[in-house]
C-alpha cells in the first residue's frame, strides 16, 4: 500500500520530479491537443450569451482554461460523461479560471488539476450545478487546494455538485456575499465545505462525509471583509475522520481529524436540523482564531475579530462521535473528564471569548453562544488556561438568538 502511494506520487511527476526530472511537454495525443486548442479558442472568443458545449469523453488538457467574458455558459454532457483531465498539466495551476459575471457551469467533471479545480474570482450571479471536481488518487497533500472555489463574488448558487480529494476545502466560498450551497457532496477533502469571510450563506441538504472536517464556517484575518450570517441546516455530516492531509500552515491544517461542523472566529452562525454523527473528535466545534496556532501580533490586522459571536445551535440530531479525538490536548481532556471509554460531548467550545466585552460575566445577549438541542452537551475546554478547568455546565448557553433570514438569490433561468 505504501509502495503504491509512492508510485502514484512519482507517476504524477510531482514529488519526485521537482529536481531530477524535467517538466517535458505533457505529450497530449494529437487528438487531445487539437481538442484543447479548439476549446481554448472558444474560451478566448466567448462573449455574453455564448454557450460553450463540451462534448462527452475524457479529454486530457495540459493548461488552464481561462474565461474573461461575462454572460457565458459552460456545459458538458453530464458529470460522468464530459471529463476534463489535467493529470499532465504544465500551466495553470487551476483547471478552469473565470473572471466574469452571469456565469453558469454545469454537467461536467474536472479531474486532477495541479491547483484549484474551478476558481471564479470577482464575479456576480454565479451558477454552478451538477459538476464534479475530483483528485482521483484520493486524499493527498499534493492535490490541488480547492475543488469549487468562488471568491470575492456575489450571488452564488452551487448545487448538486461534488468535490473529492481537495487538499484544503472541497467546496470553498471565500470573501463573498449571498451564497447558497445545496444538495452537494463533499468527500475525501480536508474540509468538505467551507464558508470563509462570507456574508449571508445558506448551506443545506448537503452531505459531508469522509473528510477531515465536514462543514466549516471561518473568518481569517487580513482579508477584504469579515464574514457573518451563515445558516448550516438539513445537512448530513457524518464520519469525517480522515487524517488531516493539508500542508502545515494552511488554515485548515488546524482542523482536527474527526470534526463535524466547525465555526472559527465567525459570527451569526446558525446550525440546525442537521444529522451530525460519528465525527470522532467532536460533532460541533466553536472556536476562536487563538486555537489555530497562527495568531501572532505583527501578522494580524489589529481590527480583526478573532472570536466566535452569536452562534446558535438547535434541533440537530446528534449520534456517536467524540470517542477518539485528534491531538494530544483533546485526547487528554477526554480521558480525564470522560474516561478511557467515554466520549466528548457533541459540542466543543474552546472557551475563548472577548473578555473586554462582558455583561454580568457573559457576552452581551446578541453575541452569545446559544444551544437549544435536547440533551446535547457543550464542553468548554478552557483553552485560554491550557485546558485547566474544562466544564460541561450548560447554564451559559441557555438562550436563543433571532433567526437569520433565508438567503435570497436573483432568480435563475
Amino acid at each position, binding site marked *: 500500500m505504501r509502495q503504491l502511494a509512492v508510485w502514484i506520487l512519482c507517476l504524477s511527476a*510531482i514529488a519526485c520530479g*521537482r529536481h531530477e526530472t*524535467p*517538466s*517535458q*511537454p505533457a505529450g497530449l495525443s494529437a487528438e487531445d491537443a487539437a481538442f*484543447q*486548442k479548439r476549446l*481554448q*479558442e472558444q*474560451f*478566448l472568443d466567448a462573449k455574453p450569451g455564448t454557450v460553450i458545449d463540451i462534448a462527452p469523453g475524457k479529454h486530457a488538457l*495540459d*493548461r488552464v482554461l*481561462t*474565461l*474573461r467574458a461575462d454572460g457565458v455558459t459552460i456545459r458538458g454532457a453530464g458529470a460522468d460523461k464530459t471529463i476534463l483531465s489535467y493529470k499532465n498539466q*504544465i*500551466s*495553470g*495551476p487551476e483547471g478552469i479560471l473565470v*473572471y466574469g459575471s452571469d456565469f453558469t457551469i454545469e454537467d461536467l467533471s474536472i479531474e486532477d*488539476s*495541479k*491547483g*484549484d479545480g474551478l476558481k471564479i*474570482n*470577482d464575479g456576480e450571479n454565479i451558477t454552478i450545478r451538477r459538476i464534479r471536481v475530483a483528485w482521483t488518487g484520493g486524499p493527498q*497533500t*499534493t*492535490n*490541488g*487546494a*480547492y475543488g469549487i*472555489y468562488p*471568491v*470575492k463574488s456575489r450571488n452564488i448558487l452551487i448545487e448538486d455538485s461534488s468535490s473529492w480529494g481537495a*487538499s*484544503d476545502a472541497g467546496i470553498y466560498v*471565500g*470573501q463573498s456575499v449571498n451564497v447558497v450551497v445545496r444538495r452537494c457532496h463533499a468527500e475525501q477533502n480536508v474540509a468538505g465545505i467551507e464558508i470563509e469571510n462570507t456574508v449571508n450563506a445558506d448551506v443545506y441538504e448537503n452531505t459531508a462525509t469522509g473528510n477531515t472536517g465536514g462543514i466549516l464556517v471561518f473568518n*481569517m484575518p*487580513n*482579508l*477584504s471583509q469579515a464574514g457573518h450570517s451563515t445558516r448550516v441546516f438539513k445537512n448530513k455530516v457524518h464520519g469525517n475522520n480522515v487524517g488531516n492531509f*493539508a*500542508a*502545515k*500552515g*494552511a*488554515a485548515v*491544517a488546524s482542523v482536527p481529524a474527526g470534526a463535524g461542523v466547525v465555526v472559527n472566529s465567525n459570527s451569526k452562525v446558525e446550525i440546525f436540523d442537521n444529522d451530525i454523527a460519528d465525527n470522532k473528535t467532536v460533532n460541533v466545534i466553536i472556536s476562536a482564531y487563538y486555537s489555530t*496556532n*497562527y*495568531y*501572532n*501580533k*505583527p*501578522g*494580524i490586522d489589529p481590527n480583526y475579530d478573532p472570536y466566535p459571536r452569536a452562534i446558535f445551535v438547535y434541533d440537530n440530531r446528534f449520534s456517536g462521535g467524540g470517542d477518539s479525538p485528534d491531538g494530544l490536548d483533546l485526547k487528554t481532556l477526554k480521558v480525564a473528564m470522560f474516561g478511557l471509554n467515554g466520549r466528548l460531548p457533541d459540542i466543543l467550545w474552546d472557551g475563548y471569548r472577548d473578555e473586554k466585552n462582558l455583561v454580568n460575566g457573559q457576552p452581551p445577549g446578541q453575541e452569545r453562544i446559544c444551544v437549544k438541542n435536547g440533551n446535547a452537551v457543550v464542553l468548554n475546554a478552557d483553552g485560554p488556561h491550557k485546558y485547566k478547568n474544562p466544564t460541561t455546565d450548560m447554564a451559559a448557553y441557555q438562550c436563543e438568538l433571532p433567526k437569520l433570514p433565508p438567503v435570497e438569490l436573483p432568480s435563475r433561468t
Partner: protein
Amino acid sequence: VNAASPFKRVLIRAALQLSAGLMLAACSQPAPPVHFFAEGRPQHLSEWQVLFRDHGRLVTNDRVVPYDLNSPLFSDYAHKFRTVWMPEGKAAVYAGNESFDFPVGTIITKTFFYPHAAGGAAAVARTYDQSRDFAGAGLDLANIRLIETRILVRREQGWEALPYVWNADQTDAELARTGDEVPLELVAAGEPSEPFTYVVPNENQCAGCHVTDLKTKRIAPIGLKARHLNRDYAYPSGIQNQLAYLQKIGYLKDLPPFADVPRNADWRNTHETLDARARAYLDVNCAHCHNPTGPANTTGLSFEPQTAADRHLGVCKPPVAAGRGTGDHNFDIVPGRPQESILPFRMDSRESGVMMPEQGRGTVHREGLALIRDWIAAMPGQCGV
C-alpha cells in the same frame, strides 16, 4: 524637398534612419511604415512592420524605440528586446505610479530570445551576458534563437495582447492565440543542463498579468511606468535617460523634473541597497497580481513599491489560500528566517500549484531567489505571539 515624391521621402527617411543608426540596412531595402491594425489579428508578426529581418539581424522600423527596465520580469532566463512605437504626432502622457496613458495606435513589442548554446536542438544559454545579442542596433540572429514576440496594441476600445511564436527558420513569427509550448534546455558552463518547457501564454494568460485591476478588467502595459523606465539606454545617438529621450523625440509629455520621478533599483546592482533591490524585484515579478485591485487581492498580500513593510507585505502574515504552497510554513515572511518563509519556498518550486509566480516560468530563478532569501535574512523583527 519635394514632399510629393515618394522616392525622395524614402531616401530622406533612410538617411534619417542611417543617421539615427536605428536601422542601418534600411538604405538598401526601404521599409514600409509600421502598420497599426485598428482591429483584427494579423496572422504574422511581419504584417505589423515593427520588426523585420534584414541581413541576419532583427531590426526595428523607423521611429520604433527600444527600451529596457531597471528590473525586469524573470521569464526563464530569456533575454528580451522591447520596443514602443506611436503614430506620428501622438504622445503618451506621463503618470507617476501607473502605466503612462498611451495614445490609440501605440504598438509595444517584447521579443523573447536566448543566446545559442552548444548541445542539441533545444539547447539555449542561461546567461546574463548580452554582449553578443546585438549587431549595431539589431538583434544578431547568428548568435541567438528567437522564441516569441508579444504585441500589446492600443486600440480605440483599449489594449489588446497578441502572442506570436517564431518559426524554426526564424524568418517570421506566427500568431499563437492559444499559446504554445517549446521544449528548451538551459545550458551554462560547468553545470548540468536544465530541460524545461517554455510556455508561450495564450491571450487570456497575457491578461493574467496585464489585467492589474479586476474591476476595470482592462489590459495595461506593465513595464512602461516611470519607475521601471527611469534609467539610461545606449541609443545610437549616445547614452541618455530613457524618459528624457522619449520626451525629446515627442513620445512623452508632462514629464516632471527628475527629482520627482520614481526609480526602481536594478535588482542585480549590488551598489544599491538590499531592500531597494528586493522591493524592485518583487514589484515587477509579483505586483501585477499582488496589488490591492489585482487578481491576487484575495490573499491580502501586496508587493507594490508603496506597500508598507509589515503584514501587508507578508511579514508574519498567515497564508490564505496557498494550499500546499505553504511548504509547511506558517507565515509568508518570517524576518531573519528565509528557510521558514513561504515566499522563497514558492519561488524555489517549479511545480504548478506550488510555484509563484503562477505563470511565465518553468524554471527557478536562482539569483532572484538568492536575493529574496538574503533580504529576508537581513530583515529585523520576529513573529512573536
